[in-house]
Each structure stands twice: as structure tokens, then as C-alpha cells.
């Protein structure tokens, strides 16, 4: 895996696409009560190519969400450098270079589905008719046409999450940051949402950083899976998953040998050693 093949700033190497994200030896130290310090992340190096789907996986406390928050400039790194499309994370946030979705949908309860999707456009001064048109496209994209004037409390958890994803896509970002967006959904809904997400992502061509703690989810969705480990939070391995382009990933893939191979690879990376394949080959 060649992690430094892409240029990280606009000045270098014309013609070669600019990296969507470039993290260089980033670290994050939280100061907790009474001045004690917690090393949440140490020495993180990661490059995400345009259009690439990268999952961050690891046990609780491994800093995967923190890393995402650093990229989104919701927190700032205590050391190292984070560039998003060649800009600092802060500048990228101010320029609205990314869309974001969280574990809880985070919809505003007093706004309808459509008004929730329009929120970022409204904040950034997009005109009313243009907003409505864009919201319409997105509502169709996430399959909520009949629900556009419903309110969040009238939607199921899966539907709320679809609204949140539509909202994150509202400004056609070239980068999507997603923090366990399906974490609170039941398994069936979750698989359906994963399917829709790979479809949407390949249609929009956006790069994605996707935080999860589900191995099958990471494997099914990703081009690469970044495996992290806690105390201190760090990257222990990056697993390449080669399951073909997103448009061709369907439910049958979940039964495929290549999918299982990916799952095994990620599991072994998570556990730090080959897992005894007891009963693994029942077919």
C-alpha cells in the first residue's frame, strides 16, 4: 500500500489529483479534570484519495471518532498536520469542503425533512428556489419522496439517518465524514442503509471517511479499512479490500468468499494475530 503517492498541497505535481485528506504524524492530548492528560491519538499518518472509501475501525477508546473530529476541525490536533484538499482542517471547514453525519441523526425536531436537508444551504445563503430544488433531488436520492413534509419524530431511526445523509450531501461535498451513522440501527436496516450508502457514494464520487465498530460493515463499504488500537490511539494496520466498485456491491456480496476473506483480514489485524479458524470453513 502506497500511502504517499498523492500530492498533499496544490503547488506540487500538476495533473496528479490532490489528496482528499492528508494526516501527517498527528496527535491529540486531552486534558481531563485536575490537569491529568490523556493521549487520545499518537503519530497518525493517513492519506485518503479522492473518491476513496476509507473506514476507521477499532475498539472503544481507540480514537477513531477523535481522528474524524480532528479532520472535521471539531477538535484541533495537539501535534502534526492535517490537510483537507491541501488546506488546513480549519480552512477546509470554513470553506465547507466536507459534509458530515453523526451517530445520532441530529435533525432539528422543529424542522420538516425538507427543511432539515435545506439547513446547510440556508446557512450559506443559497436562494429559496435553488434550495428546494436541491432538497428535492436529495429526498429522491435517499428514497423519502413521500416524507418530505414529515417531522423527525414521525420517522423511524433508519429514515432519520437517511435524512442526515441527504443533509450531509446537500452541498455536493467531495468529502463525506461519517461517525458511526448506522450505529444505532437494527441489523436489517443497517444492511439496507449500507447498500444505499455505497450506491450514493459511487454516484456522487465523494471520498468518505467512515467510523464504525462493525467489521462486516467496514469490509462491505470500504476500499481500505484502517485498523486502530487504544491506549494510546494509533493506527496498527491498513487492510486493502478489493470487492470491486461500489455500484457492483450487492447483498450477494455478503455471502462471497472475497468478503469473508476481507472480514478475516480485518479481524486478524484487530486482534493482532491470526485468529484460529475453528469452524470457519463450514460451507
Amino acid at each position, binding site marked *: 500500500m502506497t500511502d504517499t503517492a498523492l500530492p498533499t498541497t496544490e503547488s506540487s505535481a500538476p495533473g496528479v489529483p490532490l489528496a482528499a485528506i492528508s494526516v501527517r504524524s498527528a496527535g491529540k492530548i486531552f486534558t481531563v479534570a485536575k490537569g491529568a492528560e490523556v493521549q487520545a491519538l499518537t503519530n497518525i499518518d493517513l492519506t485518503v484519495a479522492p473518491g476513496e472509501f476509507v473506514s476507521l475501525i477499532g475498539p472503544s477508546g481507540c480514537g477513531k471518532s477523535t481522528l474524524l*473530529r480532528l479532520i*472535521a*476541525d*471539531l477538535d484541533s490536533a495537539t501535534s502534526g498536520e492535517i490537510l483537507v484538499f491541501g488546506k488546513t482542517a480549519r480552512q477546509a*471547514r*470554513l470553506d*465547507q469542503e*466536507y459534509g*458530515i453525519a*453523526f451517530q*445520532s441523526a*441530529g435533525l*432539528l*425536531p*422543529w*424542522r*420538516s425533512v425538507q*427543511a432539515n436537508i435545506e*439547513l*446547510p444551504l*440556508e*446557512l*450559506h445563503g443559497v436562494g429559496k428556489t435553488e434550495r428546494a430544488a436541491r432538497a428535492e433531488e436529495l429526498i429522491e436520492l435517499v428514497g423519502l419522496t413521500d416524507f418530505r*413534509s414529515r*417531522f*423527525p*419524530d*414521525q420517522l423511524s431511526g433508519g429514515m432519520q439517518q437517511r435524512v442526515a445523509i441527504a443533509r450531509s450531501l446537500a452541498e455536493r461535498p467531495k468529502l463525506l465524514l461519517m461517525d458511526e451513522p448506522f450505529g444505532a440501527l437494527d441489523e436489517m436496516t443497517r444492511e439496507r442503509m449500507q447498500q444505499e450508502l455505497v450506491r450514493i457514494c459511487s454516484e456522487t464520487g465523494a471520498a468518505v471517511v467512515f467510523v464504525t465498530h462493525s467489521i462486516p460493515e467496514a469490509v462491505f463499504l470500504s476500499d481500505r479499512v484502517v485498523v486502530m488500537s487504544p491506549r494510546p490511539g494509533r493506527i496498527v494496520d491498513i487492510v486493502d479490500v478489493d470487492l470491486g466498485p461500489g455500484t457492483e456491491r450487492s447483498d450477494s456480496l455478503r455471502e462471497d468468499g472475497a468478503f469473508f476473506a476481507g472480514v478475516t483480514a480485518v479481524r486478524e489485524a484487530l486482534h493482532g494475530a491470526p485468529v484460529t479458524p475453528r469452524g470457519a470453513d463450514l460451507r
Partner: protein
Amino acid sequence: MSDEQRTVKSVEAAAEHPESGLLGTVAIDPTAPALFSLPAEAEATGGRAAAADRRRSVARSVLPPVLLGVAFLLLWQLAVVAFDIKPYLLPSPSDIVGQIFIVLPLLWSSLLATGLNALIGLVLGGLIAVVLALLASRVSILDRMIVPIVAAVAVVPIVALAPILNTMFGSTSDTPRRIVVLIVVFAPVFINTLRGLRQVRPVHRDLMRAYAASNWQLTRTVTLPGAVPFIFTGLRIAAPLGVISAIVAEYFGGLQNGLGSRITSAAANSAYPRAWSYVFGAIILGLVFYAVTLLLERLASRRRA
């Protein structure tokens, strides 16, 4: 979301309104007795069985208090007649009703005068409370100075200010009463609004930061709309207090145009049934203020999942 959309939604929304324990700590739960339920709620559930169920539960929750009320009135009437209780102790309900019809025009005009004082005080006090709460949520010095004073105001007999306000504004003015109401109303609205403004969910804060939204945008799109149900809860708590204060402030002298002054003057003339009929007017006024603010609160809080 536009206002029209909200109104269209209101009927079906009322049906799904979560039990109003939305604040958890509100000492009085207005949804408990069916006496207070909105008409929309009773109509909204479909299905014959559900309707029958609902009728039965309405009967179960309405009948006991109504029976108790009727029994109480009958006992009252009987007791007054049987034990020959003098009117200065307790006039009979029938005497009071008779008086109500006699003094009706005066009762109505004094009800309006007191009601207007309460309304003006409520609206102004509410507005000032919301604005100051907004400021206090942003400026910590203001927060630290106002919060203890409001806590003190809540346990202090504010009506005691009426006499000096009468001197300050002149005793021919309604302003002193309105100011008393304003101060009384201020405390609950301020406290509830401030709570609401502090209830911003972290995910919404993160979202707005990710959108590079300005402070004012955060206030306008997230903080303030989120606090609206809290503001109306504050108003609902404040409204009866406001009416009570408007009446009581009249006991301390000044203009003789409201319910409070009529009650005192009737009592001073030993016209006790008449005094009670004005008390009845005061009760009606209190109920109207409570019902209206309760309705507003329900409308404002229906989108709190």
C-alpha cells in the same frame, strides 16, 4: 418550516404529543386530568374500539372530579341553609350566583381592567425575561448577577412593592400593577428560558460548527427554536401568578377599577355574597389565562421528541 405548514400539522401533531413531562421536573402535570385535554386530541385517534376506549377513559377521568364538584356545591348549599351560616362566614352558592347576575356589567368591566393589567405585565415581563435570558446565556457576568437575584425574587412577596410603585407613578395609574405583574412573571420565564437555551444537544453544536455557522446563526437556527417550548412553559407557570398579582396589587390602594378593589370594597361594606361573586370573576380570569398559555405551550412543544 413555514407557519402554514405548522398549522396544518397541528391536529395530527396534537394526537402524538408526548406526555408533557417534557421538562421532567414540572411540579404540576397538566396532562393528568382529561379536563385539560385539547379537543383535537379527543378526535384524532381513529378506529371504533379506540374511540370507545377513549370515551371510557374520559368518563373515568372526568366523572369523579365533576361528581366531587357537584357534591361539594350541594353540601355547601345544604350546610349554609341547615346550620344557618351567616353570609359573613360563608354565603350560599345560590346567593353568590344571584349576585353575579346583579353585578354582571361591573363584574365584566373590572374583569377586563384587571385582565388587561395582567396581560400587559405578562407580555412585557415575558419579553424582557427572554431577552435577558438570551443575554445571560452569552454574557457570563450578567448570568452571575441576574440568576441569584431572580432566585431571590421568586421567594419574596413582590406585591409589597405596590405601595411605593403607587407613589412613584401616581396612584391614578395602572402602571404600578402592571410592573408588579411584570416582576412576578419575569422570574419563572427567565429561569425556564435560560434552561432551554442551555439544552443545546452536543450533536447540534458539532453540526453547526461543521457548517462554520456564526454565533448568531447558531442562536437563530438551533438555540432559540430549541428554547421556545421552555419559554412557553415558563409563561404557563407565570400566567396564573400574574393574574394573582394583578388582583392582589389592587389590595394595596390605587385605582378602584379592578376585581381586587371591588372585592375589598364589597367586603368592607359587609356585602359578602357580592365579594364572593367578584372572587368568582377572579377565578374565571385565572382559568382563562391558564388555559390560553397551556394551549400555547402544547402548540410550542409538540415537536419535542
